[in-house]
């Protein structure tokens, strides 16, 4: 699977699936309290599973201001 991050900088990761969202966030060291996982036009919860060949975006919800 492809995991895309846009902020603070553009990055891309590849994981082998199936894998739970919770696991993906743990490996990326992202705090679930400040993160959304986007697939298409919807969101995934921590127990959702991402399969090989799928693409998701992990987006930090923290912004300045």
């Amino acid at each position, binding site marked *: 699977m492809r995991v895309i991050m846009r902020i*603070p900088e553009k990055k891309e990761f590849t994981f082998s699936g199936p894998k739970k969202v919770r696991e993906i966030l743990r490996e990326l060291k992202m705090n*679930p*309290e*400040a993160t959304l996982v986007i697939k298409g036009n919807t969101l*995934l*919860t921590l127990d959702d599973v991402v399969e090989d060949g799928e693409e998701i975006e992990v987006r930090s919800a*923290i*912004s*300045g*201001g």
Partner: protein
Amino acid sequence: RLCKVCKAKAVIELPQHNTAFCREHFLAYFENQVRRAIQDFRMFTTEDRILVAVSGGKDSLVLWEVLLRLGYRADGLYIDLGIGDYSAASREKAEAFAAARGATLRIVSLKEQYDVTVPELARSLRRPACSGCGLAKRYLFNLEAEKGEYDVLATGHNLDDEAATLFGNVLHWNLEALRRQSPVLEAENGFRRKVKPLIRLTERETAAYAILTGIDYIVEECPHAVGARSHLYKELLNQLELHSPGAKRQFLLGFYERGRAAIEGATERPEVRPCKVCGQPTVAEVCSFCRMMQRVGVDEVRLMTAAGVE
């Protein structure tokens, strides 16, 4: 995980409420929280004309969207600060949002009105860009609201923004800032009424609302905001939240309910009067915006003209 209301598959978990929602019920929950903030703090009614400060980011666009959905009379104000590609891209998002909804977007450009941009300000003043930027935004927001005769100014500050500010104010025991921190600042001495309808919702919730309603916002951060102190405070509060869900919310709402009143009586309110140059309210002879602009070479006539003073 299933939606608490309809048992359909959930799209978002909210540990602070120990719950989860499907798309439909999350949007309903979100709009309800905004409605509740507006009512609890008596922010405005459907009669009032509201000006929303729109940056092109998630919070301000989501706020505008929800106010329109709830039937309020809300226009947007975009302030173009001339921060290169970032300003261009964020302005486009704001314009596209307004056009798609047939909503009114007012635009003020620092470059057009004062022939200076935020990066230029920062360079001449040798100050961090964010301080000049915040000052300019506050000033122009109030000025434009006056010109457009709006009753209320609304900003998209969310729970995380406010909790981080509160954390910083408490760490330094800045009593004056604590007194001023409020979901509603009443109109007085030439300042318009100011409100923050998103204070019951976290940053993560506003981002989720934007994604689930298809609001196209600028994801990139302002290049000047990187490494800001408020990020550190937000991170620490989110770590706390991870261990005790709801802690952030309790911290902020508890302050509004009890802490603020306790501190309010102990600080003095400075006297406010009109700026000798532009007429906007200030505690000095000349307001800090005019002083900043004069230091970078903007002349008095231009400041007066932009402010609509003869």
